[in-house]
């Protein structure tokens, strides 16, 4: 690159300078010259002749000078000189009316310096560029803010520029050391919206260099919410990220989704990265107080650096670190959160009175006769016992009707939750090292009595500059230990709503669950164990403990090679264990019931197949993860117009897991390790006469996830406004039974950005910043359960004959490929004058091809369906984030809007269910082409029958009650109601600042989706499988009621098909749209600089109220669409303070 450019630049400057000086001088001697290809010496001699101005210089100047061609008439001599020295490797000065000529050296001096911010903290990564004549030299500041730059005499100043700071020019006058103080750029913005560079886990991408799509959650926003888990703190404050509620098992749904769904059977979870590497443990182990910022990588350019892991987006968490030359800082945070008891009355179950009415109705119709007379002593509810005893029935039923189990549940099973948080950290740094040390303690007492979670986290990170500016070593150690008690699952084995759990003195009462109480009272003539089920005693006897420990060790080496080249070596070791022990002692119903069930009456002597003593279920999971990465970086600013930033590397990842589940029987003080039992023999069950084996939960296996990846990534910035970026990555994994060449997948991305507002033609004064970005590329996903060979999985369990058996998990699939998701993203970043309005608008389109899906096969082959690359999906949507500064001055008011839309659609899927029934299965995933993966389907509703109150379906346009025909109808008769997850979602956060007060509240909305509400199901109600639904009161009771209600009549004989039809019909579909006031936070800050008697530097008090409530919902039934089958999260109030000293 060259000398020509360098000289051109020099000349440009020279001309400018000279011409300026020309206008300053007056009555200058003029010259007339006519020279063609003459030596400079000859021309200068001519000038001397005409003006009398002499010239001198270093002896060698005449040799290096180029020939000159000049034709001028009556030209001021200085201008003529400029022409003569144009393109010359020389520089000249006017010294006392003479011309002094110097041969130009590239650079003459070394200037060393530091760039600091207003708080005297070092500013790393700032660009320092010389300004003057000749080639501009450049340098970047290091971690300490230090730089050294070569300057020449002709350089007049240096310019320091950085993303977050205002550009500053400092005149240079030959000094050798300099300290530059820069001012933070966007001072008007509220703290919350100041975003630093995006962290990808491989590098930091400054905002002005980014072409891809990143959402950032700065520290102030993470700290805003009070919670034990880091994930909770991202809910409602992260653009394009949605927390899925009402997740049911069996449908491969993740808890968190970024920009809609892009896989069907593959892993649906976003990748979570902590600092440099994927986090292998449970994310709840992370202390949110240790997290500095969170970056969400959304499109191909942002996420494809993570290759085959990036298909569902990436969440990168960056932990807090110390800084070089930073004074020691202590910080202490504590908070106390108190939560209400959950609302047990939220689900509208049948009242005790109505429930008894139903039981009486059934009793009168003879429904219970078979059960009452069954020799197996099947349990009867208290009401049915009263009815069959037929003694003082009405009085007894009336007193039963007054009991509501929820009252006892509320009293004995629930309590207000109390959560405590303590976190202490200190950080600091000298010239050659910095550190951050923290310790956290959380104690969460659940709203469920006897459940608790305690967590201790310890974290220490150190960075040493071993050879200053050359070699830097950083180490990081973090350790988490938590203990959880899971003694209360708040479930009862029975469904009737009028049981008393305790007597007046609080002693547990027995309820009929497996057998009739009259049988249990006398069975075994006292030789069996007590067979009563007392739920409250079970709660008191429960001993279920979960211990989790996680250790993470990090080591990083950074070596600056030369000329912008540097190399990084990172290593991380992670080790985690989960040790779960559920001890059900001999007093628990489960243990007593099992011992009794397997007892054999041998002429009055009982033989026990299940030994006396408690039962211990142990679940032990452990993993060891090793990550190693070697990366070469190249960072260079060639000139203000050319910046190149590139990296390439390879990494290795190995996560070895182990699962060991065991069950021990007969645990007593004498036999703490249990006694052996016979798991293979079939024993007769006491009284039922069924045969069964003693349950065995032995499960032992190991897992191994290994990856080898190669990646490269580059961004080139031209004229500070045109940016192109590209990345490529290849991942290989230990996919089983796959040929080596198919173990990997190559993925790439490309992007471009254009900062329009820097163009000369751009003159929209109200929108001084406008940047356009566009990217395209591929993200990947792995489904490690498929394979190219016939693979079988050995059962963790034995078959009925005590043998381990295996199942063919996959027939051979020689053409297996990895999932690839093509992603297009276009974005617009903008900022209005004075940053009153800043924001980003993005549109994306995702095209998932070769997704793993099911294909139907000829069943004669022995394989009905086949898992392979047989599905396609698309998704599209937009993200809008807006930050507005509504009021400035003493009262500040700002808004943060996050508005996202993301909708997926299945475009190819080989399996269509044979009939509509397939689309009403709650726990299986059955995609239908043309609709979102998670959709709500329904059956046509034709009202209730005038004469019977039966629900009417539609068969060929006619109302009908042949439910089996309706369910067996082809898929075309299905009514698609809409997506089951909100495509439209976001939040609106308001922040007010007045003096030291800050008040903020967050409103969350979810729109455009549907859900199926619960209603009465008679078959389940009659058979004790459900507590019924209060819709019962609205049921059809007489002809004509069909005009005012849609709730079917109460049948004498319940028909499950009739219930299923009603359950899946259109009338129970509700719109899920709602707006929720999530939380309010009020804080007050005190600083020593304004209160000199404050014992600490700063203190912040805050009050935080969470889960406040729904502001608006589309349904008129008081259903919170986030909690269809469960109870809404109770409201909580937190009081906290943060001290800095």
């Amino acid at each position, binding site marked *: 690159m060259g000398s020509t450019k360098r000289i051109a630049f020099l000349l440009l400057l020279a001309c400018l300078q000279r011409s300026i000086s020309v206008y300053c001088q007056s009555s200058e001697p003029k010259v007339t010259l006519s020279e063609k290809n003459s030596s400079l010496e000859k021309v200068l001699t001519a000038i001397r002749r005409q003006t009398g101005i002499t010239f001198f210089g270093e002896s060698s100047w005449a040799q290096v000078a180029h020939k000159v061609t000049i034709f001028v008439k009556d030209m001021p001599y200085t201008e003529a000189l400029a022409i003569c020295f144009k393109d010359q490797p020389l520089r000249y000065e006017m010294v006392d009316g003479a011309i002094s000529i110097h041969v130009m050296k590239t650079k003459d001096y070394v200037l060393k310096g530091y760039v600091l911010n207003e708080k005297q903290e070092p500013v790393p990564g700032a660009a320092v560029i010389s300004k003057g004549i000749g080639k501009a030299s450049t340098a970047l500041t290091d971690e300490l803010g230090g730089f050294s730059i070569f300057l020449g005499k002709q350089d007049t100043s240096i310019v320091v520029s950085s993303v977050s700071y205002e550009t500053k020019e400092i005149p240079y006058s030959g000094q050798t050391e300099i300290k530059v103080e820069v001012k933070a750029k966007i001072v008007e913005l509220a703290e919350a919206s100041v975003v630093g560079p995006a962290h990808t886990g491989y590098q930091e991408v400054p905002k002005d260099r980014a072409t891809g799509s990143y959402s950032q959650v700065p520290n102030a926003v993470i700290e805003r919410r009070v919670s034990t888990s880091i994930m909770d703190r991202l809910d409602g404050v992260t653009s394009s990220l949605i927390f899925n509620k009402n997740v049911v098992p069996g449908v491969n749904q993740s808890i968190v989704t970024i920009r809609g769904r892009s896989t069907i059977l593959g892993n649906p979870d976003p990748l979570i990265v902590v600092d440099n590497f994927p986090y292998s443990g449970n994310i709840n182990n992370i202390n949110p107080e240790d997290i500095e910022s969170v970056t969400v990588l959304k499109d191909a350019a942002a996420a494809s650096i993570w290759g085959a892991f990036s298909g569902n987006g990436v969440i990168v968490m960056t932990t807090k670190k110390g800084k070089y030359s930073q004074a020691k800082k202590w910080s202490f945070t504590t908070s106390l959160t108190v939560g209400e008891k959950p609302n047990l009355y939220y689900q509208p179950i049948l009242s005790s009175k109505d429930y008894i009415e139903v039981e009486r109705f059934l009793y009168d119709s003879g429904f219970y006769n*078979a059960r009452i007379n069954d020799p*197996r002593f099947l349990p009867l509810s208290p009401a049915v016992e009263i009815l069959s005893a037929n003694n003082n029935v009405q009085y007894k039923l009336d007193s039963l009707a007054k009991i509501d189990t929820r009252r006892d549940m509320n009293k004995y099973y629930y309590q207000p939750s109390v959560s405590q948080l303590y976190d202490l950290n200190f950080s600091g740094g000298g010239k050659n090292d910095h550190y951050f040390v923290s310790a956290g303690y959380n104690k969460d007492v659940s709203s469920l009595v006897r459940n608790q979670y305690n967590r201790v986290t310890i974290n220490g990170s150190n960075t040493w500059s071993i050879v200053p500016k050359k070699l830097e070593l950083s180490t990081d150690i973090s350790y988490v230990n938590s203990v959880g008690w899971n003694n209360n699952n708040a479930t009862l084995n029975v469904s009737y709503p009028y049981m008393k759990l305790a007597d007046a003195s609080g002693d547990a009462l027995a309820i009929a669950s497996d057998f009739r109480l009259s049988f249990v009272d006398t069975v075994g003539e006292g030789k069996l164990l007590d067979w009563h089920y007392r739920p409250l005693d079970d709660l008191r006897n429960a001993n279920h403990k979960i211990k989790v420990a996680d250790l993470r060790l990090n080591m990083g080496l950074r*070596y600056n*090679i030369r000329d912008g080249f540097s190399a990084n*070596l990172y290593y991380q070791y992670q080790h985690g264990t989960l040790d779960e022990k559920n001890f059900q002692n001999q007093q628990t119903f489960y243990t007593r019931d099992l011992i009794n069930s397997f007892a054999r009456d041998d002429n009055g002597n009982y033989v026990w197949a299940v030994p006396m003593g408690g039962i211990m279920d142990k679940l032990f999971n452990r993993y060891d993860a090793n990550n*190693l990465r*070697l990366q070469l970086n190249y960072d260079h600013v060639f000139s203000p117009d050319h910046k190149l930033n590139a990296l390439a590397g*390879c990494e*290795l990842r190995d996560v070895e897991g182990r699962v060991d589940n065991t069950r021990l029987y007969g645990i007593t003080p004498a036999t703490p390790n249990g006694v052996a039992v016979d798991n*293979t023999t*079939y024993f*007769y069950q006491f009284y*039922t*006469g*069924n*045969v069964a084996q003693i349950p065995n939960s032995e499960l032992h*296996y*190991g897992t*191994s*996830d*290994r990856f*080898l990846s190669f990646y490269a990534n580059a961004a080139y910035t031209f004229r500070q406004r045109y940016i192109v970026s590209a990345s490529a990555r290849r991942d290989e*994994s*230990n*996919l*089983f039974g796959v040929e080596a060449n198919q173990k990997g997948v190559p993925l790439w991305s490309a992007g471009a950005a254009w900062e329009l507002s820097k163009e000369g033609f751009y003159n929209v004064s109200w929108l001084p910043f406008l940047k356009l970005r566009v990217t395209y590329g591929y993200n990947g996903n792995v489904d*490690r359960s498929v394979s190219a060979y*016939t*693979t*079988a*999985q*050995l*059962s963790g369990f034995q*078959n*009925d*004959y*005590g*043998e*381990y*058996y*295996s*199942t*063919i998990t996959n*027939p*051979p699939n020689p053409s297996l490929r990895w999932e690839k998701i093509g992603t297009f993203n276009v974005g617009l970043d903008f900022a209005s004058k004075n940053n009153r309005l800043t924001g980003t608008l993005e549109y994306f389109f995702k095209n998932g091809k070769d997704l793993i899906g099911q294909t*139907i096969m*000829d*069943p*004669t*082959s*022995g*394989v*009905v369906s086949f898992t392979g690359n047989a599905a396609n999906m698309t998704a599209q949507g937009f993200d809008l984030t807006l930050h507005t500064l509504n009021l400035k001055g003493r009262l500040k008011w700002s808004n943060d809007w996050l508005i996202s839309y993301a909708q997926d659609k299945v475009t190819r899927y080989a399996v269509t269910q*044979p009939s509509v029934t397939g689309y009403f299965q709650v726990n299986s995933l059955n995609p239908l082409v043309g609709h979102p993966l998670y959709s709500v389907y329904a059956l046509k509703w034709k009202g209730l029958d005038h004469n019977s109150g039966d629900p009417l379906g539609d068969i060929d346009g006619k109302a009908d009650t042949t*439910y*089996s025909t309706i369910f*067996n109808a*082809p898929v075309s008769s299905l009514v698609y109601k809409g997506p089951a997850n909100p495509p439209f979602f976001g939040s609106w956060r308001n922040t007010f600042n007045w003096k030291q007060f800050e008040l903020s509240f967050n409103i969350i909305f979810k729109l455009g989706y549907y859900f199926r509400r619960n209603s009465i199901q008679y078959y389940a109600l009659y058979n004790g499988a459900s507590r019924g639904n209060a819709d019962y009161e609205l049921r059809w009771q007489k002809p004509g009621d069909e005009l005012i209600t849609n709730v079917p009549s109460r049948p004498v004989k319940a*028909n499950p*098909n009739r219930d299923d039809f009603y359950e899946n019909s259109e009338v129970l579909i509700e719109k899920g749209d709602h707006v929720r006031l999530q939380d309010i936070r009020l804080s007050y800050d005190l600083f020593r600089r304004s209160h000199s008697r404050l014992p600490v530097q700063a203190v912040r008090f805050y009050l935080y109220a969470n889960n406040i409530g729904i502001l608006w919902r589309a349904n008129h039934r008081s259903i919170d669409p986030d909690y269809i089958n469960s109870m809404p999260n109770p409201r909580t109030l937190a009081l906290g303070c943060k001290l800095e000293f």
Partner: protein
Amino acid sequence: MKRASRRRVTFYLLLMTAGTIFGCGKSSFLDKKPDTRLVVPTTLNDFQTLLDNQYIMQETPELGELSADNFYTTYGVWQGLVVKEQNAYLWAQNIYDGIGQVPDWDIPYQQVFYANVVLDGLIGITPDETNQVQWNTVKGTALFLRAYAFHNLSQVFAPLYDSATAASDNGIPLRLTSDVNKPSNRATVQATYNQILTDLQEAVGLLPAAVPTNNLNRPSKPAALALLARVCLSMRAYNLAGTYANNCLQLYNTLMKYDTVRFGKTFPIYNSNPETLYQSVMYRSSGLFVGGGLRSNLIIDSTLYASYVPGDLRKNVYYRTSNGLAYLKGSYNGSSFCFTGLATDEIYLIHAECAARVGDKDAALNDLNNLLQHRWADSVAFNPVTAANASDALDSVLVERRKELAFRGLRWSDLRRLNKELAKDTIYHGLNGQVHRLSPGSLNYVLPIPPDVLNMNKGMSDNPRVIPN
């Protein structure tokens, strides 16, 4: 200069480290199994674990039982059945209504696939003296299981074996390789039975002679002989069936005294009882078993129930009554699911039937009375069955066969074969005030090929069916 070279050394060291880490160990690094439970089945033990997958290997079709005459059901229960079950019960012309994924077809072929994976895999293992016995057992088991599945399929989807037409009648597709991409073609009935017989004869030579005491999901030589007897009986090759039954009983002939079973219990006969030679069960997700098993959905044919005379313990062991109707209690596997496996009582009956058919009245009655004595209450005097001649004896054997082997998945096969010779009975199912009939020799005695199979195999011909009269 010095510093520059040091720099270069460092750089190369880094490169070399990287090369060592990422280069050398690469292939072995990525060869590790992602889950220790995963296997590409290659060893004899691997194959045995596949064959031990009872959840796949043990189920047999239900459509035959649905179409037979052991039970009837109410309109309400019938409505709860899936379409093909409803239609099979009524012997409709088209039973599937276009709905594929028919377990009666899919499950046996899945068993065939497992057996073929094993048989194909065995080619890669040359047995030596250390593993010859295991190799033989595994191969014999796979052959047995394949034959068992083929035979079950042939009883539902192929016409009755008739030596006159078997060479041209459409049998079932015979899949003999584990390659799932090979197209399926129907073999002739002759080829179908040839394959079943060849597989079984080979299995007899490979399987161990002792019936396992516990692992009754594993076939033995007596089980293979028993199956040969059952197959030959269904082909009406009575001489051969008698010989195989005899060979089987020579090796194993235990019968249970029903006086000793716990018939007060829900399921009086337990799983792995001593009469069992090989364990299998009728398709367990069948609509017949919904709601707590066969017990409550299906009502025992009253003539059948009435045919058990006082003293015959089977009435109480097999059935229970409620509101004057008889329901099935439990089966030979200690559950409410129908036992369809092989047991010695069936072999005694085959032996007796074949003896009677060749005119050996005494041998037939001897077998029959031996069996019946085991079914008799000690408290009631047992009057042995007598017969004037072999033909009478055959009648008695067939009556007892009906009573002994009800709900064992054999009735449909018996109806098909007996219609060809003795009393030709029309069977009836009443439903919702209408009577449905299946006349003897009807084409509807062969069930149609599932629609998805026909769709996937263009050119495969369906079984001809008629609209029932």
